[in-house]
């Protein structure tokens, strides 16, 4: 039924596209952890540096990912070089960089909270940072679909190029349902992993409290 509607290489392409979504999210999260970690430390340090970090986190929280993506795409020349090395980001990197303000501000907020918990003598409270980061990762996977707007061949771009060739709305809706299913299963699996992590940490906390 589906093969009658969709091109032969649709499903392999969709899976390959979704790998790109994960790749983008992973890059954004790694960069976000680095930048957000520094900002969290600066904020907790207080003083002028803390105030600057707080303002920066506020600005990054307010910056819409989609606009940041177009900003980066248009502000960095295609032939930009640094010490003779080309530094113009690829499409994938542009999308990942556009997600960094979100991931860094998220990491800074949750990282600061985790550090507070750690200083207050609750390492397990601090460990809640891990499920929160997992949640952010799956939000980043879903947000990376914005790459379709600048020609990055991620999962949604594969679905949209297939949709263009389908004649009726009914066929298109079936295709979109397949897309939601693929992304939905991934997302729900991620959230299940997050819940497992939370439960596991909760059990550790209970065991610690119950111990004499």
């Amino acid at each position: 039924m589906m093969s009658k509607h969709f091109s032969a290489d649709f499903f392999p392409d969709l899976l390959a596209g979704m790998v790109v979504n994960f790749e983008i999210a992973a890059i954004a999260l790694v960069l976000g952890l680095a930048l957000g970690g520094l900002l969290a430390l600066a904020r907790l340090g207080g003083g002028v540096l803390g105030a600057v970090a707080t303002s920066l986190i506020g600005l990054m929280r307010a910056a819409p990912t989609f606009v940041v993506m177009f900003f980066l795409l248009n502000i960095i020349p295609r032939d930009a070089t640094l010490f003779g090395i080309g530094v113009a980001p690829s499409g994938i990197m542009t999308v990942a960089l556009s997600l960094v303000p979100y991931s860094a501000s998220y990491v800074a907020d949750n990282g600061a909270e985790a550090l507070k918990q750690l200083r207050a003598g609750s390492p397990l409270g601090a460990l809640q940072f891990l499920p929160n980061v997992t949640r952010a990762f799956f939000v980043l996977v879903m947000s990376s679909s914005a790459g379709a707007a600048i020609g990055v061949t991620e999962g949604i771009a594969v679905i949209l190029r297939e949709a263009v060739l389908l004649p009726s709305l009914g066929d298109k809706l079936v295709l979109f349902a397949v897309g939601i299913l693929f992304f939905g299963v991934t997302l729900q699996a991620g959230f299940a992993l997050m819940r497992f992590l939370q439960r596991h940490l909760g059990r550790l906390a209970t065991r610690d409290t119950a111990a004499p």
Partner: protein
Amino acid sequence: MRVWRILLFVAAAAFAVLPAAAETPDAALAKLVADARAEAAVPGACTAANVDRLVRAFCENRLRPGIREYYPLFGTREGDVRSGYDIDVARAVAKRLGVEPVFTRVNAASRIPLLADDRIDVIVATMGHNTQRDGQVRFIRPHYYQSETTVVGPRALSVKDWPDIAGRTVCVTIGNGSNAQIVSHNARLMLFDEAGVLPGQLKDETCTLAAQDDSFFDFYFIEPDFAARFEKKFGFAQVPWGMAVARTASSERLARALDLMSQIFLRDGVFLEIARANRVGTSFLERQQVVWKRPECNTDTGSGNPACVLPALNADLEPTPFVARVVAFEKWVKAETGIDLSLPMLKTMPAWMLFKDGIVNSLILVVGALAATLLFALVLGAAQSSRSILLRWPARAITITLQSSPVVLTLVIAAAVAHALFPYSSAVAIGAAIVALGLMNGSNAGQAIAEAMHTLRTERGSARGREGIPTRELFSRAVNRSATQIVSFLINAAKGTPIASFIGAPELLSALTDITSFASGRATTYSLLLVFYVVVVVVVVWLCGKFQSWLEHRQAVA
């Protein structure tokens, strides 16, 4: 006596012939080149300030043409080997002057700035001659080629004319003169720096449609695979191509030499031979050869004769009433700070209208998305809190589905349904975006309300026992309790509004993308865009903070 008469006749004939010889473009060019060479030989002439460009070419024994490297059939480069029609035209020009060509790579966006910066002497880079560019560079006439913009897409796609373009994304190159025309037919643009990437984007289906000069696509339609998959949908905007030099007094003699050379090359079929050698279309050049062989055109003033030369494509955009003040402001900023500010959205009426409408539509989108988020949060929250499974389960199913769908996909689905119900228009695209953003964020906020309702029921259940349907008061308290979550998703909705441009909603991002496709100043434009949206989100955060305080105050009172 008879001998004297014969001598007199010969002398008269000689005088009659001499002026005629001087009027040919060949003679005029020879004289111009000889004069410039003589000037270059004068000691100190080559080191003088602001030396004439033609003289400088002889001083340095080189001409610096700006050419493309990624435009098949016209300008390509493999290693150190350059080939294409433009490359060979530049070589022929340099050879006629007796100097060496020194090539510099340019693209559609960089060719005019490089000329203005005196980093190249002449543009020979697939540049269409339109009235807009006439004010920026000195075009060489007669023109050395002609093309039209053609829209290319998959054969399976039914696109025949402008009405089929509305709402679709068309891949184009930045700086292409025909972009404004595509925008005016409600198409969305995906911008690329180089035309060379367009066929690849079509093949890997990143682009469904691409618009570029027909001359460019000619090469790809030679490939059987490409021709089997794609076709030319329709063409528009015929434009003659011109070489161009800087619009300065010191470039005028070089321009004049190139005018005359272009005349000669058209008349003698030099361009025609180069075109044949590079397998590009020759019909324009064949027609032009006939024109330039005509006696009234084949003179040293032929390039100024309107009966012989083609007019530039009229692409002049109506200036805004305040353009002079904008230009003065840009100059002031440059002088005071050194920052090269460019505000194209304030200089021409089409750009100004797009900009104004973009701001208004963005604000409508933000307000609409906030209202829709609140509305869907309350409706889905109430439904998910209902004791009836007929209401509760469908609402939960909707929420899980929306949570599982990436934002772009949800928007596309909303747009597909909207366009199936209504004919395409900007209002429909904005409406679809508002509904999609409201549903996405409202469903999450609704889930938070339902969870708050559940906890309230548990608390009330332990105090007063199980009750029937939820009361209005209980629901109101659930809304108060989930205030933080609601506010968080309201802010998320406001932040998500720019993505509406993906489905053709003409908000500010979409408007500025359109403006930068036919005007310069990308850096300033996108910086302004970022500032605009950050300010909008900050204002929304502030308003949401007030709203949250009000809800929390209500909760405290309750």
